[in-house]
């Protein structure tokens, strides 16, 4: 796969900005998202701007190549707030000419006016959470919008932005592989150039987990139909010209999310906002940063201490190699073996590697190691064996 590798060059930096609020909490969601009665936009603005200053003064000389507003529901942010953040970034750091600025949006929080304002603020890519294309399933997922509203939002977004992606969740309750194939064909009929297609995961601590444990979440597909759905997702999207470039992400070549590629390729990114993580290389050591998770706590930490960061930890070579393999094998392009060996040569278990090659789960071509189409859906099991 091509794609701007300079996003992972030593001087390049991606920036993740977390907005932790939503209109309602979806029962399947384990993101750091909260429902708040009122949000003091002014306070938040000051805090974000202060964090931007801190992060870039701590990491001087970096060129900003991507920005990602994630959530929560960043489309609930005041467009003015987004504008102020982006203009602060202009002065805080040099930016690449083709900087990618993505914002996650929910169909229910969209009006055409806001989208225009986001574009004017500098946002040039939108990722829209449609999740399902029929009302019954949207209701079961606890979503606040109808299928029609979702499609309306998609039309609006496409009228305003050049780059629009949307998310769907599949392997839902009572969904058969045929149902999903039909829904996916409908989605592809909109000719998107980027799609995120996630299998529904029952995450610990969510309402769905509780229902699942009490047998109140009937009709979830078993392993075999779920695997069938994954396989047919690959087939259908590939035929439509949107092959998977990552486990759950599909794009027309060249239309990949550059920001997300930074995560999977092991590039550097800073994280700002409640619960945002970062990976920053300083003096040759890759550091993991974390921030205060609870919105109020983050705010007051920024206000009183001048920083929302709660920890910065240097990763060992082993941990760094582990992350690189774990994230990199999610990509269709896979990983460079010499890169991994350069970080930590003991990390890969070569006997296990040979065994999985023999089983047709991993493929090696020169320096590159990739999962095969059979191996991709087994990545967790592969990693457990592969990493020594």
């Amino acid at each position, binding site marked *: 796969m091509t794609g701007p590798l300079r996003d992972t060059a030593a001087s390049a930096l991606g920036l993740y900005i977390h907005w932790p609020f939503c209109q309602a909490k979806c029962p399947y969601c384990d993101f750091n998202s909260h429902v708040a009665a009122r949000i003091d936009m002014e306070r938040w603005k000051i805090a974000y701007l202060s964090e931007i200053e801190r992060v870039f003064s701590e990491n001087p000389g970096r060129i900003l190549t991507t920005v990602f507003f994630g959530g929560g529901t960043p489309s609930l942010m005041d467009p003015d707030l987004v504008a102020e953040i982006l203009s602060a970034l202009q002065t805080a750091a040099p930016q690449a000419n083709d900087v990618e600025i993505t914002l996650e949006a929910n169909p229910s929080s969209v009006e055409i006016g806001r989208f225009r304002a986001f574009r004017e603020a500098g946002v040039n890519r939108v990722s829209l959470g449609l999740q399902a294309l029929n009302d019954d399933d949207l209701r079961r997922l606890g979503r606040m919008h109808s299928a029609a509203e979702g499609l309306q939002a998609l039309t609006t977004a496409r009228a305003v932005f050049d780059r629009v992606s949307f998310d769907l969740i599949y392997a839902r309750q009572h969904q058969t592989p045929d149902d999903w194939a039909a829904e996916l064909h409908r989605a592809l009929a909109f000719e998107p150039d980027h799609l995120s297609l996630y299998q529904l*995961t029952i995450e610990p601590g969510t309402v769905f987990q509780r229902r699942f444990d009490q047998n109140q979440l009937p009709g979830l597909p078993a392993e075999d139909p779920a695997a069938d759905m*994954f396989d047919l997702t690959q087939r259908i999207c590939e035929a439509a010209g949107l092959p998977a470039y990552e486990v*759950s992400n599909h794009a027309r070549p060249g239309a990949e999310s550059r920001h997300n590629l930074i995560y999977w390729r092991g590039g550097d990114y800073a994280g700002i906002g409640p619960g945002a993580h970062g990976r920053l290389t300083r003096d040759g050591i890759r550091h993991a940063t974390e921030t205060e998770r609870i919105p109020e706590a983050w705010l007051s930490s920024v206000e009183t201490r001048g920083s929302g960061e709660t920890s910065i930890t240097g990763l060992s070579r082993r941990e760094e190699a582990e*992350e690189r393999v774990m994230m990199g094998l999610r990509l269709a392009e896979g990983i460079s073996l010499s890169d991994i060996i350069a970080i930590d040569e003991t990390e890969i278990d070569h006997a296990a590697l040979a065994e999985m090659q023999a089983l047709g789960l991993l493929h090696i071509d020169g320096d590159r190691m990739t999962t095969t189409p059979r191996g991709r859906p087994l990545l967790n099991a592969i990693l457990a064996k592969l990493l020594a």
Partner: protein
Amino acid sequence: MTELSRIRNFSIVAHIDHGKSTLADRLIQLTGTVAERDMQDQILDAMDIERERGITIKANTVRIEYPARDGHTYILNLIDTPGHVDFAYEVSRSMQAVEGSLLVVDASQGVEAQTLANVYQAIDADHEIVPVLNKIDLPAAEPARVREQIEDVIGIDASDAVEISAKTGLGIPDVLEAIVTRLPAPKGDRDAPLKAMLVDSYYDPYLGVVVLIRVIDGVIRKGDRIRMMKTGGTYGIDRLGVFTPKMKDIAELGPGEMGFLTASIKQVRDTRVGDTITHEKKPTATPLPGFKPSQPVVFCGLFPVDANDFEDMRDAIEKLALNDASFTSEMETSAALGFGFRCGFLGLLHLEVIRDRLEREYDIDLITTAPSVIYHIYMRDGSMIELHNPADMPDLTHVDHLEEPRIKATILVPDEYLGDVLKLCQDRRGIQLDLTYAGSRAMVVYDLPLNEVVFDFYDRLKSVTKGYASFDYQMIGYRQDHLVKMQILVNDEPVDALSTMVHRDRAEARGRAMCEKLKELIPRHMFKIPIQAAIGGRIIARETLAALRKDVTAKCYGGDATRKRKLLEKQKAGKKKMRQFGKVEIPQSAFISALKMDG
């Protein structure tokens, strides 16, 4: 030092769940032995496993003081015993240490199989028996009918049985009074040389070996030099005391009294239940006869998951054996599993309890191989081999014939479930010996092969009778039958730990059932796994476990890297501990679960 006439020693015995431990609670509570705020239900069931399963596993002794209606204060030593048949050895040993028994019968259930078994043991031990009808608070309680049943079925006088509710406390003062007036005082000679019975022992990480004793003759004091007569060890007593149930130091124990001692005993195997403790200098001339040893009936291999834990395991087994004289162990090696122990138990529950205790109390992960009974193998040269482990089955060309252990099982069951019980016994190759009625309950006696009973017969019996049947058994000897060794092959490799002996006529059904079970129990791997049952070289059943198809995290972005990595590291730590069978990982629980049949 207490007057013999002011001491009463007794055990509380009953069928499982009839309320022994709850009665003990009330006796402890009413006499103010434990402060109200420290009281809890079944206070003597202190082990985690006991509290989780809601049953007593270890017999427990408590000393209580009771000011009786005659104006005197009595010392009562009560032993709460377990009800489950697998822990019967605890009961028989406890009975040797005391003079009387409270026979508790649930007035809503009536006489059950262990009620009978316990009564016979109590009579054997020359006990005075006081029948106690419990749970009369229940609407279903029928004390009058149960009284009659006790007289008809057991043949003891129940006219002055005490009616109580251990739950509400009703009738407890009458129980205390009956203990004092109806149970005999112990006998003993204060001036004779010391003779004390080693009733039980356990290992305490702080105190070392703690020994429970019953003094027969003489007086034992802190600082005394003592000798264990059978094992020969001599020690100075560090600490002497009684259980209230907390440990409380005491200066001396005289005839008829019970208590504990510690004596920096270095070798735990020097402590043997039933041994006689006497003074080093002035020993008794007549040691006690000792306890009848228990006969383990189920055997399995226990191996540490991590081979490095073997020494710790040896140590743990030794310490645990100190607290459980009915469990045997001897070292064993296996090609696939390395060093471990072949252990003997009184039943499957006993096995599960010991394994759990080893894992929890000593923090060792274990692999348990398929349980087996002991077969007698008669060789063509006339010799006989005891086979504890099917994996050791000798070459058939040298074998003349095999014999398997049989039991006499007594089952009490309400009429309406009799048909199901007969069918179950018939399916397990049983031979009916007797069928009588006691009121609306049938008493069925069957001759059954032990290997059809130990694994899951009790569970099945409970399920086909909705819990209304009770069951007890005794070994009756060996009988020849057509038994064959069945091997299980996982991914084309034989797994010795899953080999079992089965009857020839049932081999195919068993093999099919085991393969199906294993298919459920073994998690999917990255390749498909054939699971086969074979006799000799012949495959008699086959299942295929499909390959794993899906195990991938759907969403993994920048914020997930740390969590995901930590998860992987945990998985890797687990992998290092996992024992492989060829290329396949078989979960530890599979070896027992695979043998539990649904039919």
